[in-house]
């Protein structure tokens, strides 16, 4: 199976081609947990200290804040699951994508699939689309312009093979 990384660079040559990309996230899941717990412990520690002295009304506010932080943490975790996959196998081109709770997929016939890549100015603000039977689907939305152009070239070649 061929794989292409999220920069649009090909990794091998065989019958099935798979391209998968994800949105840019600078933090790993472990680092996200460290950020959350560092903030939560400082908040909770301070509030608990004051609560022990009898000034307990600080504690519920710390709790609410940690709750809001936890929600933010959860949203990031959900976003982590976003992806976009292009698979070319046999006669089929399969597009799959997921963003948040929404997921969808589309299949095209390999012979009818067309690749277009239009840039607003040379090499900048490029839109990469796969189209078939009058419908076009934008792909490569998590990629840089350079990577989109490379992916467009790779897809054209793979569709011709």
């Amino acid at each position, binding site marked *: 199976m061929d794989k292409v990384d999220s920069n649009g660079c090909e990794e091998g040559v065989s019958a099935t081609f798979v391209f998968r990309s994800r949105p*840019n996230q*600078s933090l790993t899941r472990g680092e996200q947990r460290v950020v959350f717990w560092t903030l939560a412990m*400082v908040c909770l520690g301070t509030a608990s200290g004051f609560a022990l*002295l*009898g000034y307990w*009304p600080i504690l519920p*506010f710390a709790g609410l*804040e940690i709750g809001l932080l936890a929600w933010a943490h959860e949203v990031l975790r959900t976003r982590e699951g976003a992806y976009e996959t292009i698979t070319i196998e046999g006669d089929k081109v399969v597009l799959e994508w997921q963003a948040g709770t929404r997921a969808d997929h589309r299949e095209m016939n390999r012979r009818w699939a067309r690749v277009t890549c239009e840039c607003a100015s040379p090499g900048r603000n490029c839109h990469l689309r796969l189209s078939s039977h009058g*419908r076009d689907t934008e792909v490569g939305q998590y990629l*840089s312009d350079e990577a989109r152009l490379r992916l467009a070239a790779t897809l054209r070649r793979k569709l011709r093979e």
Partner: protein
Amino acid sequence: MSDAAHAHDEHGHHAHPTGLMRWLTTTNHKDIGSLYLFFALIMLFMAGSMALLIRAELFKPGLQLMHPDFFNQLTTMHGLIMIFGVIMPAFSGFANWQVPLMLGAPDMAFPRMNNWAFWLLPVAGVMLLGSFWLPGGAVAGGWTMYPPLFIQGGVSYDLTILAVHIMGLSSIMGSINIITTILNMRAPGLTLMKMPLFCWTWLITAYLLIATMPVLAGAVTMLLTDRNFGTHFFNAAGGGDPVMFQHIFWFFAHPEVYILILPAFGIVSQVIPTFARKPLFGYASMVYATASIAILSFIVWAHHMFTVGMPVAGQLFFMFSTMLIAVPTGVKVFNWVATMWKGSMTFETPMLFAIAFVCLFTIGGFSGLVLAMAPVDIQLQDTYYVVAHFHYVLVSGALFSIFAGIYYWLPKWTGHMYSETLGKTHFWLSVIGMNIVFFPMHFLGLAGMPRRIPDYALQFTEFNQIATVGAFIFGFSQLIFLTVVLKTIKGGAKASDRVWEGAEGLEWTVPSPAPYHTFETAPVVK
């Protein structure tokens, strides 16, 4: 049907509403940044007008213009609005505009929460200003809200507590957004130690806000329950401890002081290298110094309370820990000077404000060191020396850095160059005016004039008159600033993408004005 359109919709590229609805519903970081900055500008003129009324009353000894209670309302509201309505929102405006641009991110991490965080602020602002028209007038117990005064006032005290809660909620939402954006949305290759210093200072500021805001919320809630629900947390009549409020309040408010100044350090650290045409000297030490200041800010709170009575060991601890903060602050001042050293310097308005910041903030820092000494502080507590100290920190520190930042990034935001002549006029009048207002206050304080009084002994007259003249020069020179901002928004010479010759960073790679959507795909930083 085109799936492309669907995909575009999912990423928020659809046509956005116009007119009032655009500003009410916007989730765009640039729009929200502009809203914060305009809000801060309006509040600056409100709270500034209050300061002019205060100074007009103090022009002569005796009571001239107002009742003492109204004078106290003005000093309290001036402080509250300047802190929560001007400085903090202005820095949030900068963060909204600049952090995504500097990181190569398309927007803030939570755009809808960002919209909420802003729109809570005008609500709180209206509550604070509206309290002037309530029976008994606005709060008059000082921005520090100390009991027993604060548990004895009228209905405006409850309204102020509610306003503080709302502003706190807004700050927490803004901070979570900023932390998440900075940590999770950096462009590939932009490691933490490659980040612009402005982002670092805001990251640390946001941590401080998150750590301290529940303490403020809890403290004012206890005031509220003492006032209305028969509790006695701080009510000595019922066995409560009013001094403990001061401990809790300053546990929040001393870090708050750094919340008001750390983003200023970030702005100046962007401006000075640009106009010195040299990279920032000692980048890593700047980051560590900022973090050290933030950590130390949690263990110095009681230096605001040397006169309430505490053991000598406590006084010594808080005295030495406070003095320790001078070390990382000194590192910063040294690095800014070293950045300018042998640089190809030019003196455009942002650089002038940044240099004034370094010189005058240092004066504020030194008077802070004087106040850190417990035996000296006991003499100077609640005198005009303290007023001089914190205005050197917050006016020539925070406010001048805001001016520096506005002049620096305004061409990027509007696409037009501002008038350098008007900018420099604004600078010189502000610097001269500011020093005429606040420098004599050192002498007034050393001579024993207490703060928060509408009347004073005759021997203080001359210095007060000088300060009042300076206040009017400083106050009216801000109309020049307003003119510059409005003129630049309306038109002017076209700004290039990289507005300043020495400017470095991702924000200068996008066109001027920065397009409504930038970095839809993350740039790669090498």
